[in-house]
């Protein structure tokens, strides 16, 4: 399957990946509305790690044997049969945070507003922009520090 | 003077012209009367517009074969007198006479045409070779407005002027001359009313050039030639080709085959596919003589004593047909013209762009290059008896 490959040496720390991830996962998909009116209900699912001049944008690594699926008590966390991505079915998620507890990359976050009105607690993670040809973070990285590539399956890391 | 211009009155950088050309050479050295070439070139009348045509013949003056035969045109008698004095100051004049001619309907106000048989005065050559001296003198004369040297080789001569080929043939009585190598030209200039000096063939020393097409690289070809001491007074591609041939094939001593590679070299991709040794030579030819690459459409027949070279540009933008009959090699713009004068050639073919067709005195003519490799592609001509 295709994965997002991180090129740390090219990350310029602009965080446009975060901006566009947020927009992609907002209801309006309109950048200004997303920030002005939905800001509290939607989280970017990529986060730029930064230390001195080094930085990189980190999102779910799409583990071969995902510990988050293993730990999920609700069955929300699953591998999508079509895209192969590890995704959280937000309708099933109960916000128990087991996945957050086990994800070694720290790339799952608490969303305490659960998409707004419902106010539900749900786990928020990268879904490779479900169905998109190229995820928003990759498409909008101005320096190609993120690429979307077919990567051979290797040994699981966990 | 309006009609009988012998100088390029517009001073255009380049005179474009579309043309018909024809040349043939009997490699056995047998002499042929001018009738056949007149027939051949007149057959291609559509290729000209009456603004210039001419003939070159080799083996013309066996009695003066060691002398430079100058065919000259002068604006008037006074100019002829002036030229006469100049030539006698710089040459030993062995013989001179008017070139026989008759009045022809449609040719108005022709120049004074004369011929001299000369030898250079060695005292005047001051370090120049004999041939370079001739070149220098021709250029000096041609730089004036009153006289023009049409041809300056040995045992050859050029007859040309403003008019249709049959008019010029009649004017000069070309059918009365005999030569083993003839070339002819029928001109269609676009941008000048035509002038006598600008007609083809162009001659220098024993070179004669007939040319069809327009060379897009003219500007750099001319600058390169001028860098080597030639003065381009005619503003024609043909002149540049003659000088280029003189530089490369006389002064630098390259063979006609090598000269062809200079004027119409293979593409780099073709060079890269050659065996190492040839590749190196060909690459160096292009590197060294790139400024002489003749780009754009052309078909030319370059002749000198004992050798005739037919060549068209490397992507074959101008027509050329060649044929062999016994010891005779024909090159023409159109196949029909050959058939008119030689109904049953042994072989007829269309040379590839950049592939020279060469006839040499004493060598049996051969089908050139790729066609020779691919005999089945050459037509064995049906008889038109």
């Amino acid at each position, binding site marked *: 399957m295709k*994965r997002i*490959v*991180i*090129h*740390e040496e090219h990350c310029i720390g602009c965080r446009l990946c975060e901006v566009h991830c947020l927009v992609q996962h907002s209801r309006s998909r309109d950048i200004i509305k997303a920030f002005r009116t939905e800001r509290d209900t939607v989280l970017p699912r990529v986060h730029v*790690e*930064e*230390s001195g001049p*080094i*930085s*990189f944008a*980190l999102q779910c*690594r*799409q*583990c*071969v044997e995902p*510990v988050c699926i*293993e*730990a999920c*008590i*609700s*069955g929300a966390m699953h591998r999508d049969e079509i895209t192969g991505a590890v995704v959280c079915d937000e309708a*099933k998620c*109960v916000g*128990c*945070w*087991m*996945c*957050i*507890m*086990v*994800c*070694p*990359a*720290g790339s*799952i*976050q*608490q969303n305490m507003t659960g998409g707004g009105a419902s106010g539900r607690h749900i786990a928020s993670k990268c879904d490779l922009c479900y169905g998109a040809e190229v995820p928003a973070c990759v498409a909008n990285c101005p320096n190609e520090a993120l690429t979307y590539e077919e*990567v*051979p*399956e*290797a*040994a*699981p*890391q*966990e | 003077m309006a009609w009988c211009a012998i100088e390029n009155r517009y001073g255009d950088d380049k005179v474009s012209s579309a043309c018909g050309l024809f040349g043939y050479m009997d490699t056995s050295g047998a002499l042929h009367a001018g009738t056949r070439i007149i027939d051949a070139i007149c057959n291609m009348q559509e290729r000209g517009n009456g603004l210039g045509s001419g003939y070159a013949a080799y083996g013309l003056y066996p009695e003066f074969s060691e002398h430079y035969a100058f065919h000259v045109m002068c604006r008037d008698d006074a100019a002829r007198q002036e030229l006469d004095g100049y030539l006698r100051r710089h040459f030993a004049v062995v013989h001179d006479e008017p070139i026989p001619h008759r009045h022809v309907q449609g040719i108005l106000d022709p120049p004074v045409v004369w011929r001299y048989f000369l030898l250079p005065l060695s005292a005047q050559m001051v370090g120049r070779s004999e041939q370079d001296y001739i070149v220098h003198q021709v250029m000096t004369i041609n730089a004036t407005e009153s006289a023009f040297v049409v041809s300056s080789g040995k045992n050859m001569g050029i007859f040309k002027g403003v008019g249709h080929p049959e008019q010029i043939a009649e004017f000069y009585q070309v059918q009365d001359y005999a030569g083993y190598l003839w070339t002819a030209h029928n001109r269609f200039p676009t941008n000048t009313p035509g002038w006598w000096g600008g007609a083809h063939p162009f001659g220098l020393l024993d070179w004669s050039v007939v040319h069809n097409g327009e060379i897009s690289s003219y500007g750099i070809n001319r600058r390169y030639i001028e860098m080597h001491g030639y003065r381009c007074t005619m503003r024609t591609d043909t002149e540049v080709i003659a000088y280029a041939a003189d530089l490369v094939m006389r002064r630098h001593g390259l063979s006609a085959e090598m000269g062809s590679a200079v004027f119409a070299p293979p593409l780099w991709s073709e060079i890269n596919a050659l065996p190492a040794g040839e590749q190196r030579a060909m690459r160096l030819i292009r590197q060294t003589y790139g400024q002489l690459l003749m780009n754009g459409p052309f078909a030319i027949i370059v002749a000198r004593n004992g050798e005739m070279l037919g060549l068209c540009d490397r992507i074959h933008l101008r027509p050329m047909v060649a044929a062999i009959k016994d010891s005779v090699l024909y090159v023409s713009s159109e196949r029909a013209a050959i058939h008119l004068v030689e109904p049953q050639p042994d072989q007829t073919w269309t040379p590839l762009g950049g592939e020279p067709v060469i006839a040499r005195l004493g060598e049996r003519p051969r089908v050139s290059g790729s066609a020779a490799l691919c005999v089945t592609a050459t037509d064995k001509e049906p008889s038109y008896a």
Partner: protein
Amino acid sequence: MENTRSVQTPALDQTPRIVIVGNSATAVGAVEALRKVDQSAEVTVISAEPHMIYSRPMLSHYLAGEIERPRLAYRGADFYARHNVRPVLDDAVVRIDPQAHSVTTASGQTFGWDKLLIATGGSPIIPPLPGLDVEGVYAFTRLDDALAILEYARKREARHAVVIGGGMIGIKATDALLKRGLRISMVELAPAILARSLDEVASRMMSNLLVDAGVEVLLENTVTEVRSSEGRLTGVVLRDGRQIACDLLVFGIGVRPNAGLAREAGLKVNQGIVVDHAMRTSHEGIYAAGDVAEAYDLVVDMNRIVAIWPNAYRQGATAGAHMVGVERVDPGGVAMNTVEVCGVPAISVGNGNAPEEGHQVLAECDERAHRYKRMVLRDGRLVGVILVGDINRAGVYTGLIRNRIDVSGCEDALLNERISLLSLPDQYRKHVVTGAGIEV
């Protein structure tokens, strides 16, 4: 006995028979793992419970009224069909015969197997108190328990519950019932709640949250007697003599592994069934996994029962894969848990509550903001962590514990507000970032 050996390594042309006893995370893990590589094995899942696969940890959310019953389903209704599994539900296994390679159920059915996975989990601990046998007294581990509590509470309009146990189960029950609007008294024998997972500070923070929410937290105390009237619960008597009137009593003390069958079958059993790195028991062809198994714990570096959902699933997957010939080694479990009280989450991984002696402990606390971090290191490696409040990067610590990463030199970074992978050793960062062998 000798003549049955051949069954264990069936010839290639025979379809292997696999029996899984139990129908929870372990069974699902096993089925999903084995079906990844093998479509032919004949798989039977036998469960004493009548229900489709449901999520036990979700019961508290159900009890709290946060979710409807359908969401308890851990896998879809088509799980068995899709994985070509024969379910045998509502029929407890009563005997395992290792020699005959068979199990027998309460209904008298016998199932032969080439590989057997015992995933019987655990049963709630109910101390033998006098007066227990009345309406209104429940355990809280199974769906039936939750259904019964809800049914009872609805019917009797229960107002005041006593929850026995301040561990994970007790707290979850408490939190759930709080959300149902009940008054609650929680009785814990130990001096602190969640004492097995949390240290004193974290425990106090969680306890305070409960108190603030109106829960009566009774520590170092226990119920000694259950009072009833007309067969209905009316209250309890505590060890210190206090009496508490209540109309609901929930046991949330813990579970005990259901290892009886295995013991009877002659397998090696300590607290639970002893298994190796591939979840094999002492008897060839028989595996055990989940809450019933005593498997390797990589933090304490010994076998023990760590009865948590992720372990159950992973061990099941290990066993499942191994049963169809995949050489897979379980890396070992780590005790961990997450609990939420009144919206404040707490996470404990490994030995987060280890004492300061013999360990390096880093801690940072902001009780007002309900934030707390405690890192426990041994020999330069993280062995435990407790997070209260901000838990967003908890997995990063879990990864460090699991992978036994030497974090000497980056200790300061561990307490950062948001731990950055860039503050961890380069090699480890690249390992995590590259995921499945992707170049950084």
